[in-house]
């Protein structure tokens, strides 16, 4: 059965086809796809600049600024830090013409939008236009993808290139042209150049070709693709070596390998399940069982794309909210396949017999609504005093940073509770900031961060003149927050700037809670 015939057999297509001419049904699917793109654009730019950068965004934007040679930021953000620089390099081109937070986020959103388009392209080739339209709607609305692709993070671009890789692997599997596999190798390389963790996708590709012998993939073609990928990836070590930072990547890798766990075993089940959408995951999983009779290498490919990184990060002690994003497109396609293809024989709803042809559209609407509502809620500006890394901008950070830039003398040095707020202060304030929680033991700290070996002495000798307390870090590390306030008390701290947020007490009274406080200190 060719793709066209396969599409015509789809229950959704058949259902629509009974009501409408087939050509009109196809047009409807394309309209849905256009709608998905429109929704994707709206969700990825709505209120995009309402909050300032979070710590990671500040670092990547700071690196981009350093690459572009922005003198105010170059001293605080070394070009060569921890990750490869593909996204930062592209971002830096924007800095040459316009210095704005919005620009970086628009670039990230563009990668997100590109991923939505790629999901359509992949699903269309694997399952036809209706499934593709549904898949693109799912990824366009998925809170996980929306939230991450609205930020200046590396995970959006790496997901785009991983999805591009998936696209070319799928085409190779369909068309058997080795040139497509070589392009996949290049795209995989670009994904790694965006963020090195996507190298795990190579494991997924390996598993796929191993489990799908019927494709008859030639070892020679695979090796050439691997060579292309390595050639592209070699950019990273070559740039590091030629810039005299050969140990930078190694130091960071060593730190990541041996650092202490930052989240428990239930982190991904609890956070990513909700972010991808429980109904989407249920639909994807259910389809694998319910449509097992139609299983082919297509599902193997998508499963391998999901399972390898998911298994790795579930076992790996260091976890991050956005690490599993490259798997989201495959999840969306599998869920869309279920919604498009599954047609129960009969169903009992509200005590009566409901025609089965209505159940699929109802399920589609239900799943899409289950994505749209939390997504809409999550893209509204937050005023919370707690914060999950990778989940969005930081309230008050940009405002305090800009105040510092205009009110605190140049050359001032600051001490924050942790490196996250320190990064934000450096980016917006253009002043050196240290994190109190950054340890001096090189085995126990991120090598990208500079510790302040003796904060007490630094304040006594007036090398550090300001202390910045923030509610987000204080909630995470009460010990260091308490220690920081000890310094405030010991060294004549005076609050010179407070960012606060309105919130309700248990009794319902409206109060303003401090988010960030800047203290001037002196010996």
């Amino acid at each position, binding site marked *: 059965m060719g793709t066209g015939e396969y599409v015509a057999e789809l229950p959704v297509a058949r259902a629509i086809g009974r009501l409408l001419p087939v050509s009109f049904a196809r047009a409807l699917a394309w309209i849905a796809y256009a709608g998905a793109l429109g929704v994707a654009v709206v969700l990825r730019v709505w209120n995009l600049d309402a909050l300032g950068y979070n710590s990671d965004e500040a670092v990547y934007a700071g690196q981009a600024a350093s690459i572009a040679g922005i003198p105010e930021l170059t001293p605080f953000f070394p070009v060569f830090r921890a990750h490869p620089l593909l996204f930062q390099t592209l971002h830096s081109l924007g800095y040459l013409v316009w210095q704005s937070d919005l620009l970086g986020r628009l670039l990230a959103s563009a990668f997100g939008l590109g991923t939505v388009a790629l999901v359509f392209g992949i699903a269309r080739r694997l399952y036809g236009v209706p499934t593709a339209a549904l898949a693109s709607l799912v990824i366009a609305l998925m809170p996980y993808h929306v939230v991450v692709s609205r930020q200046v993070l590396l995970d959006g671009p790496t997901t785009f290139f991983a999805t591009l890789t998936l696209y070319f692997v799928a085409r190779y599997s369909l068309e058997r*042209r080795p040139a497509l596999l070589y392009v996949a190798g290049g795209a995989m390389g670009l994904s790694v150049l965006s963020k090195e963790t996507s190298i795990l996708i190579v494991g997924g590709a390996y598993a796929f070709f191993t489990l799908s012998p019927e494709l008859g993939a030639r070892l020679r073609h695979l090796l050439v693709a691997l060579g292309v990928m390595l050639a592209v990836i070699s950019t990273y070590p070559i740039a590091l070596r030629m810039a005299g930072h050969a140990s930078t990547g190694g130091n960071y890798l060593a730190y990541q390998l041996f650092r202490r766990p930052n989240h428990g075993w239930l982190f991904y089940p609890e956070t990513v399940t909700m972010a991808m959408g429980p109904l989407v995951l249920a639909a994807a999983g259910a389809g694998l069982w319910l449509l097992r009779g139609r299983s082919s290498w297509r599902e193997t490919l998508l499963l391998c794309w999901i399972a390898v990184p998911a298994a790795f990060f579930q076992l790996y002690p260091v976890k991050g909210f956005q690490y599993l994003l490259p798997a989201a497109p495959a999840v969306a396609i599998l869920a869309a396949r279920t919604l498009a293809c599954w047609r129960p024989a009969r169903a009992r709803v509200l005590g009566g017999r409901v025609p089965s042809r209505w159940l699929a559209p109802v399920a589609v609407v239900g799943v899409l609504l289950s994505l749209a509502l939390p997504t809409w809620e999550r893209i509204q500006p937050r005023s919370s005093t707690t914060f999950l890394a990778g989940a969005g901008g930081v309230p008050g950070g940009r405002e305090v940073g800009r105040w510092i830039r205009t009110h605190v003398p140049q050359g001032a040095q600051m001490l924050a509770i942790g490196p996250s707020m320190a990064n934000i202060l450096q980016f917006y304030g253009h002043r050196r900031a240290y994190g109190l929680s950054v340890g001096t033991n090189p085995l126990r700290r991120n090598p990208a961060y500079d510790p302040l070996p003796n904060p007490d002495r630094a304040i006594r000798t007036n090398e550090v003149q300001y202390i910045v307390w923030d509610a987000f870090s204080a909630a995470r590390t009460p010990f260091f927050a308490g220690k920081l306030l000890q310094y405030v008390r010991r060294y004549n701290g005076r609050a010179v700037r407070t960012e606060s947020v309105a919130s309700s007490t248990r009794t319902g009274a409206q109060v303003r809670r401090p988010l960030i406080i800047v203290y001037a200190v002196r010996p």
Partner: protein
Amino acid sequence: MIPPRLLAAIAAALGFGAAVGGPFHAHAAAAPNHPRTTTPIEHLVVVMQENHTYDNYFGTYPRGDGLPRGVCMPLDPDRKGGRCVRPFHIGDNGIVPRDLDHSRSTYLGQLNGGRMDGFVRALERRNQDGRLAMAHYDGRDLPYYWNLADEYVLFDRFFSSSGAGSFLNHFYWVAGAPARSGDRISPAGVRGIPTIFDRLEEAGISWKFYVQNYEPRLTYRTVDRFPPNRASQVIWVPLLNIPRFIDDPRLNRHIVDLHEYYRDAARGRLPAVAFIAPSGPSEHPPSSVVSGQAFVRTLINQLVASPHWRRSAFLLTYDDWGGWYDHVRPPRVDAHGYGFRVPALLVSPYARRGHVDSVVHDFTSILRFIEDNWRLKPLAQRDRRASSIATGLDFGQPPRPPTFTSAVRSAPAPDELRARTALVYVLYGGAILLTAGLAVSASRRGKGRGSAPLGRRT
């Protein structure tokens, strides 16, 4: 969850912040009304540290009149061709800083009739290691002061007012004339000498003398009752030798502890003229130059961050040469002076950037500036004839923005940075082009051959 105690502390701090008038950077508190000044400078802060020469601190600084090439100080100036000591970085040769004799007789011995070749021998005659006179510091030891010199004004013809020790020079600092008791505290006190603070008081211009670790009971009358190391307060605060500044509450209230300086600066209430005397971190050998720099940095930073910055000047200088070598023969202006050169730095938003000022100055040049700026009568011949420190200022330029000068001495390498970023563009751009080229190639081949039909769905 934030612990309640933490929230309480934050709330207390917020309340405190409100109590002091919010951001100290804002011009919230009104400064006292001053008569108009002849320059934009409405606040002058002067700090006098202890016992170093220009060559001792800035002899190897890249600009200014530093150590002459090839200089070698004879052990015995009367023997031609004898052994000599070249300037060396302090700490080399296992020689550590110590308090060198800096009495009038040592000064004359080192001056050696104007030949400037008795620096080693004069100390040897005091049973001290004379080689130490030739030791000097550099940017490794004095990063902050050298950075200040890079950014502001370094005077390389700033002489101590008297070829003697602290007591006399401190009197020149406030009165433009020597105390009649000579270079020591007199049990009878010092009378009959007007000071700059008398002039300021008469004119109704605000002033304060800030004293670190101030002990109000310690004056020339009570100095014997305190441990010897506390006597420095009476020497470094000359007003505590003058009965009227001790007995008259209207005058005495202006002598206050240094913590008031920080408070006054933060609230925008610094007086027009502020003199500061240190305590421990005075840099008097063998005390640490590191702690001295930290002390001065704190004072300057407080001024820079204050609402006064745009209308202020800060002068740092040293009361006498401390026994160290300096190669410039001091001009003879009267029986007491000048003494050898001392380091002096002028920090102000109007200071010429990285300027080395070679106009001849001494401590009375500070008095001259005050007199000129606030239209006061001269105190004595010295300040009447002195050149003002205003030579280091350029009021034609807009005031410079407040900046904390770094305590680390390092030079950026912009060219190297540019080369690295160019490398990033080339390599990452190449990676993108390689992949794009493969995609274009695959697309063309695909068009040429057409998509391979699927025989059956696998």
